[in-house]
């Protein structure tokens, strides 16, 4: 199917718990490396936080950004800028008028470290010591705004917020911007930097984090019978999306196309997915219809799979419900087993992984699955990467968020 405004991926960038760029992140993912590690701080003793590990960023942005940049941007924006610079260079730094270039970069939480640092400064030292950049650093659209400033994007700068679906929703919105003719090129992705005692304590309070403190690398274990919650991660991923004509006209290298976007909401519970999976099924169905593919075309799903008891199984039940026997030929990957949960960055890095999987015909593994949950209803890529078939193929990236947000993206070979 070729439409007038087909959307392709021409650039990729990332900084994650697995690596400071796409190459190192992808290599580590294929090798089944865990990005989770013990936190070197006193948060447990000082505040009684029951979780002592997280999937922290592998390369400190201070190593690649200038000193003023690190002082002027919240870490969430720093990660986004690191990923954006890589993605833009990877796309060949296209010549595109600012009026035809968009920026859509989401964060699930926003500049939480800046918010909390500002509060500390206010309480301990008074208003006169608060930094003037506090507001532009804490606002959740700050990463998107800095990306727009970086590239001169004037077709629109957006930051969609849907918790852990934010990064995927950003990619979906960027697709719509190109299809509608508002832009020829859109830089889209997600970022998160919330490894701080307050959010860690808050997630622990919601009883959603793994407590496997003695063995961080094996804590994120989606679909394993002994999974006990997610591992908080951080980082960013950015994709350069482009209309197929624009990419062809400049002879750009194309990784894959984003053929379909499916969105729905559960309206069921503020944190729990609808156990019937109705909204998840709807999002996947819409995305496939949008792309003009059927369940028989879909060979790979990058699952949302955070390593929680309920969430993981709801998703595979939804896939089985929608796919029927076609689910038997789906290679399911849960890459949060390696990256941890990047929250607002998750949907972006997992879209990137799905793009790489389609482009290289290689699905990344799910690690730490020693005893698969017997209720798992879809074939899982375990331990080693799995080859994807030749010919025309489609993959789905699912991303779901607290609040009942469901986003499914269909990624197809170019």
């Amino acid at each position: 199917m070729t439409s007038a405004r087909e959307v392709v991926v021409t650039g990729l960038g990332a900084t994650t718990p697995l690596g400071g760029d796409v190459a190192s992140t992808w290599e580590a993912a294929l090798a089944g490396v865990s990005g989770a590690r013990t936190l070197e701080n006193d948060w447990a003793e000082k505040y009684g936080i029951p979780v002592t590990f997280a999937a922290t960023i592998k390369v400190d942005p201070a190593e690649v950004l200038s000193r003023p940049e690190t002082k002027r941007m919240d870490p969430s924006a720093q990660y986004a800028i690191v990923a954006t610079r890589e993605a833009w260079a990877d796309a060949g730094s296209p010549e595109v008028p600012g009026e035809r270039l968009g920026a859509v970069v989401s964060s699930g939480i926003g500049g939480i470290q800046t918010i909390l640092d500002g509060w500390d400064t206010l309480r301990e030292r008074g208003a006169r010591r608060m930094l003037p950049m506090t507001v532009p650093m804490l606002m959740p659209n700050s990463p998107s705004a800095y990306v727009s400033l970086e590239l001169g994007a004037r077709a629109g700068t957006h930051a969609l917020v849907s918790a852990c679906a934010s990064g995927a929703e950003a990619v979906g919105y960027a697709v719509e911007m190109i299809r509608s003719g508002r832009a020829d090129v859109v830089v889209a992705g997600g970022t998160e930097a919330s490894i701080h005692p307050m959010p860690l304590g808050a997630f622990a309070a919601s009883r959603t984090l793994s407590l496997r403190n003695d063995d961080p690398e094996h804590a994120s274990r989606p679909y394993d019978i002994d999974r006990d919650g997610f591992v908080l991660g951080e980082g960013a991923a950015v994709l350069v999306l482009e209309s197929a004509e624009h990419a062809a006209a400049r002879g750009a290298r194309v990784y894959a196309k984003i053929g379909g976007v499916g969105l729905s909401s559960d309206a069921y519970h503020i944190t729990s997915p609808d156990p019937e999976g109705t909204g998840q099924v709807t999002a996947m169905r819409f995305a496939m219809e949008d792309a003009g593919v059927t369940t028989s075309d879909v060979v790979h799903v990058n699952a949302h799979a955070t390593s929680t008891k309920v969430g993981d199984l709801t998703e595979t039940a939804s896939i089985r419900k929608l796919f029927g026997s076609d689910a038997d030929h789906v290679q399911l990957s849960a890459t949060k087993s390696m990256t941890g949960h990047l929250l607002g960055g998750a949907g972006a890095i997992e879209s990137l992984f799905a793009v790489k999987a389609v482009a290289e015909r290689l699905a990344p593994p799910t690690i730490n699955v020693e005893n698969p949950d017997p209720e798992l209803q879809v074939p899982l890529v375990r331990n080693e990467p799995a080859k994807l078939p030749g010919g025309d193929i489609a993959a789905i990236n699912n991303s779901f968020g607290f609040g009942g947000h469901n986003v499914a993206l269909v990624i197809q070979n170019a």
Partner: protein
Amino acid sequence: MANTDQEILEGLAEIVAEETGLDTADVLLEKSFTDDLDIDSLSMMTIVTHAEDKFGVRIPDEEVKNLATVGDAVSFIKGAQD
């Protein structure tokens, strides 16, 4: 508590360098914050906040617009310390 003019210049240069990425050697008395050092109002207020902290003085907002050059700032801080 009171610093010499040279100490204030050096301290201020460090703050400006942190904020702008300029070399401390470029932060000279005769340099204009806006025209020479390309410092916008938000960055200027950031520099003021750090300078107040470092030198233990108060630089009122209405005074900041009078600090056109690095030398103006050094003089004001010196006067405020004395």
